[in-house]
């Protein structure tokens, strides 16, 4: 069932795809050789440790920063809804929830209220947005991103400043939105735990694509374990060691068993074993 659905999703042309995407800052590549596809109705989750280039990837895909290598293909007139990682609104700007909904485009009060209702914050419609809690504000950002009926929803760490329980509720909400609107979702997260249930494809990033695939296959992959530590992997799945490359202290990579698809791997932040991270 799950497999049938997956093939149905991926048989359509992707809304957004990148091949060999690279972004460099002065002499260093922030991300390199990133391949990524998002189809309609599919949730793709980008995971990776801090500084692994998740946000850089998203920003390059959205055209907010220039990419230095590779190509990005979008369907014509792709409507994008975006929830940025960080959004602080100066308190000097008087902004109520309803007005915030129309910040990038005009919408009727009826559709504004419908969108607020869909994320469960209709009661706050008349409030100042500066008075919202972290979770309420994230819901507002979601509603705002959805109101333009986007074909692609891009969420950069959408559960920031939200407690654990609110996190689960938010991810459920994102899953609901996908089912109801059949849009593609590109999600950035530093945490695979809760994303699992709704995600179709996980792309594990550390400057390059370390591994990608279904959540289960990623959780079981040695690269994922290497990035997040044994405890994170064990929380998800039984871990079988089939490591195809090793990371030396100087950042270089040697092949362990002849697979060559990670020949370009460098894992600057994880090349040393850190016992504390392994619990």
């Amino acid at each position: 069932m799950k497999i049938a659905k997956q093939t149905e999703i991926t048989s359509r042309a992707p809304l957004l795809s990148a091949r060999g995407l690279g972004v460099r800052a002065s002499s260093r590549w922030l991300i390199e050789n990133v391949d990524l596809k998002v189809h309609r109705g599919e949730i793709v989750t980008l995971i990776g440790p801090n500084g692994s280039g998740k946000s850089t990837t998203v920003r390059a895909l959205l055209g907010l920063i220039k990419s230095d290598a590779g190509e990005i293909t979008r369907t014509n007139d792709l409507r994008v809804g975006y929830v940025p990682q960080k959004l602080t609104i100066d308190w000097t700007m008087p902004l109520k929830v309803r007005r915030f909904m129309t910040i990038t485009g005009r919408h009727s009060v009826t559709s504004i209220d419908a969108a607020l209702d869909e994320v469960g914050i209709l009661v706050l419609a008349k409030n100042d947005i500066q008075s919202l809690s972290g979770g309420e504000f994230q819901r507002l950002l979601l509603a705002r991103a959805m109101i333009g009926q986007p074909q692609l929803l891009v969420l950069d760490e959408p559960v920031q400043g939200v407690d654990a329980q609110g996190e689960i509720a938010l991810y459920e909400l994102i899953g609901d939105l996908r089912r109801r609107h059949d849009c593609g979702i590109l999600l950035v997260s530093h945490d695979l735990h809760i994303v699992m249930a709704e995600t179709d494809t996980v792309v594990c990033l550390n400057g390059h694509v370390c591994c990608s695939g279904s959540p289960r296959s990623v959780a079981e992959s040695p690269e994922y374990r290497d990035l997040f530590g044994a405890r994170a992997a064990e929380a998800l799945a039984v871990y079988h060691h089939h490591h195809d490359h090793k990371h030396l202290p100087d950042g270089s990579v040697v092949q362990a068993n002849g697979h060559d698809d990670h020949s370009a791997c460098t894992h600057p932040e994880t090349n040393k074993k850190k016992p504390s991270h392994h619990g």
Partner: protein
Amino acid sequence: MITLLAHIQKQIKKSLHTMDDFLFRALLAGAGVALIAGPLGCFIVWRRMAYFGDTMAHSALLGVALSVLFDVNITLGVFVVATFGALALIMMQRRAPLSSDALLGILSHSMLALGIVIVAMMTWLRIDLMAFLFGDILAVSWTDIVVVYAGGALILAFLIFIWRPLLAGTVSSELAAAEGLHPERARIIFMLLMAAVIAIAMKIVGILLITSLLIIPAAAARRFAPTPEMMAVLAAIIGVIAVCVGLFGSLTWDTPSGPSIVVAAAMIFLLSLLTPGSSALKMRRDM
């Protein structure tokens, strides 16, 4: 209080009867500038660009000196120099190893000093430095008024045109760009509008006080405005009130007119802080 009002009334009558219509012209010009400065000032407050605006305004004196030197229209010269000042600033912010704050501090004052030095070096010219630094609203001509209103109408038209992308970009430039607005373009147009306001307002309140006419009415309006749009309208109205009060005060107590207008605006701002139950106060308590 009553004697004061009577005194002001007497002053108005006196000026209307005996002193031509210079007060009327000053009021008209001042109100015109305030009407443009209010809405623009809101964006300066929201985007935290007060110091940036100050730096642009300080470059105006250099513009005056250069326009006189090359015999071009002063308003035009100031507009061009302020624009270049802003562009140079943006370029330097991208490259300089200094914090933006320190960079603005350096540029703001060196621009002003450079302007004063160049004016002083042109000994063959007589430029009334004080008039440019502190404004000379009582000397505005009908031509000046035409410039204020024609330029002002154009500035407001542009501001309305870029309102949505500029506001969205103020909230989050990434968000606006991701959803297909062009916040960068709006920001550049906004900077040109700022340069234009500086060029027009220089004669009214002077280079040193332009920023205050942009910022103070906007800040005072914050307490009473439920939406960004209302704040812009209220800022314009408060600016006009400040110009009226300041001019009459200036006439009554024989104080310099530009600074008197700014003092009046500051007093309105202080009064706005004392107003109970405004949304800003409530918000502060929540936090």
